[in-house]
């Protein structure tokens, strides 16, 4: 009992940190929240104002003349790039999980899976480098013009195809970053399915793929859903890779799938230097508000995924999904 009492406060640091993050960000962003109000989320006008003017008072807060902070374009960019990434990552992740579970001989499976899942270990900034150096030139010179030519009849795919930076590029790079998470958890779940149903299906004359598709896959439905939500959470908060390939749009809603965008996470980094030049400090507090919004969104998304996992009782997934 003594040991338990001794260790409980140290152990609680994990929880205290999480609460502390929200409380301190909230506290720091509070003046910005009073200034921006609800407009923060629905307006499209991030503008530091005239940095050489004299500060004026608005809503009880000192700001530079003409300063406005609205981040609708960031919310749109974040949601669009995340949605695109998840849309690409789920079929690829589930597909390769199926292939790894069923199409690779067992003695090779561990190492082949490891090779693909090693993608998760590559740092975000290296993905950004890869996107910047190899993917962007390839997309802007080869793939995007072709897509405009052959898919241009679909409104969002119509040109101009842009510079290669933008929504689709961010979505592709992001999807590659979250796909190992989906692939690893789904493969794990597929491999640990009870063998009886599989054998029954095969005995009824189903081929291996039919068994995989109509028996095994429906059985891991919940794991697919939960790992997709977890992957969504990760894509929402990815910073460096998106920063390097998104084009960092400002006050600009995407018009087609090639448009430059910016996401909340990337914006926080790209605006730091600019925001520090604001003598009233309101720009940096508004950035804190962006961070707070991002933090709350990710807590909701991750919390939902974890609760789903706890209540679906997939202990195995629970133990590995954090990796």
């Amino acid at each position, binding site marked *: 009992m003594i*040991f338990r009492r001794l*260790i*409980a406060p140290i*152990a609680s640091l*994990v*929880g205290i940190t*999480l609460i*502390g*993050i929200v409380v*301190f960000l909230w506290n720091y962003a509070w003046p910005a929240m009073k200034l921006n109000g609800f407009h923060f989320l629905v307006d499209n006008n991030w503008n530091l104002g005239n940095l050489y003017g004299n500060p004026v008072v608005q809503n009880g807060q000192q700001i530079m003349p003409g300063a406005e902070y609205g981040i609708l374009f960031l919310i749109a960019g974040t949601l669009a790039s995340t949605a695109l990434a998840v849309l690409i990552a789920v*079929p690829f992740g*589930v*597909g390769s999980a199926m*292939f*790894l579970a069923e199409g690779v001989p*067992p003695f090779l*499976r*561990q190492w082949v*899976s*490891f090779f*693909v899942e*090693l993608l998760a*270990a*590559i*740092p975000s*900034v*290296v*993905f950004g480098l890869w996107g910047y*150096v*190899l993917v962007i030139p390839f997309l802007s010179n080869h793939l995007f013009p072709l897509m405009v030519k052959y898919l241009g009849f679909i409104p969002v795919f119509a040109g101009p195809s842009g510079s290669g930076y933008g929504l689709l590029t961010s979505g592709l790079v992001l999807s590659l970053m979250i*796909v190992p998470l989906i692939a690893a958890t789904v*493969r*794990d779940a597929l491999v640990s399915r009870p063998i009886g149903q599989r054998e029954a*299906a095969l005995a*009824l*004359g189903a*081929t291996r*793929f*039919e068994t995989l598709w109509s*028996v095994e896959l429906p059985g891991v*439905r919940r794991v697919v859903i939960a790992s997709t939500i*977890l992957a969504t959470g990760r894509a929402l908060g990815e*910073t*460096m890779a998106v920063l*390097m390939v998104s084009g960092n749009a400002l006050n600009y809603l995407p018009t087609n799938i090639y448009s430059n965008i910016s996401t909340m*996470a990337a914006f*926080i*980094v790209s605006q*730091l230097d600019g925001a520090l030049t604001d003598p009233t400090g309101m720009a940096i507090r508004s950035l804190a508000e962006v*961070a707070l919004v*991002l*933090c709350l969104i*990710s*807590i909701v998304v*991750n919390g939902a*995924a974890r*609760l789903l996992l706890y209540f679906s009782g997939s202990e195995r997934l629970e*133990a590995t999904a*954090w*990796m």
Partner: protein
Amino acid sequence: MDVTMTEVRAAIIAPGFVSRSRRRIFNSLGWASIAFAFVALSAAMLSILIMVFQRGAGALNFKIFTTTTAGMTGGLINAIVGTAVMSFGGILLAIPPGIAAGIYLSEFRRGYLAPTLRFMSDVLVGVPSIVVGYFCYVTMVVDLGWHFSAAAAAIALAIISLPYITRSTEVALRAVPNTLREAGLGLGANTGTVIMRICLPMALPSIMTGILLALSVSVGETAPLIYTAGWSDYLWSGHLTNEPVGYLTYVIWTAITEPFQGAHALAYAAAFLVTVFVLLISVAARVALSRRSGGSHRG
């Protein structure tokens, strides 16, 4: 069971008659598409590895390890030292609370605290690293007046590593057989002794694996450091606060957008160092894990 035999039969024999050729097409298309998904992923992985190794190895030279950065040319020794100091510092800070939390989650499962902490730890993993960086910026860089510094950066990395160490400690301790705890308690040892002297030493190799993985995450982090470490061209002089520190991932991010070749070489060299370190740790951790489970690991 989620799927009953009737459903299995219904799915396979399908409503009505399915022609043999339609089944054949379905099967080959199915295999082709899942194989394509796998090949596409492997190709992307290979492409990244080839880029990093080819261009990175070409950019490496002796000067990288001996001189400091000067306006995005020169060497990387300041960044290498900075990354090492901040990552190891972060891990060292995260180990005590991480292991304590892991012990609590595994050994004191009854009550409200353990499930709550487990949930919070799992949510903390999902909090974007840039948000953690901003939190440390607000609290340490601004409020405590530490400015950009190694201490603020190490604490940011510690927060990021904390849930990894917590959960790997928990999983490792859970794998210790209960009979050992019962034997210890039966011999008259108290709970603390049993955990510290029996369970923890047995779980130590797995905990080390988790710590190594957390270290590899720390080494690869960029976003939180931009807000806490800043950047410096000079070698870290040993001050914990009020001195910006260089780190490798910053070089990758900034040098590649410079218009000249020397800066690009520096970016590739930094990417090579970071990636090789991270991959070595991951491979070592996987080898250690598969050896411990006696090769019976089905995954």
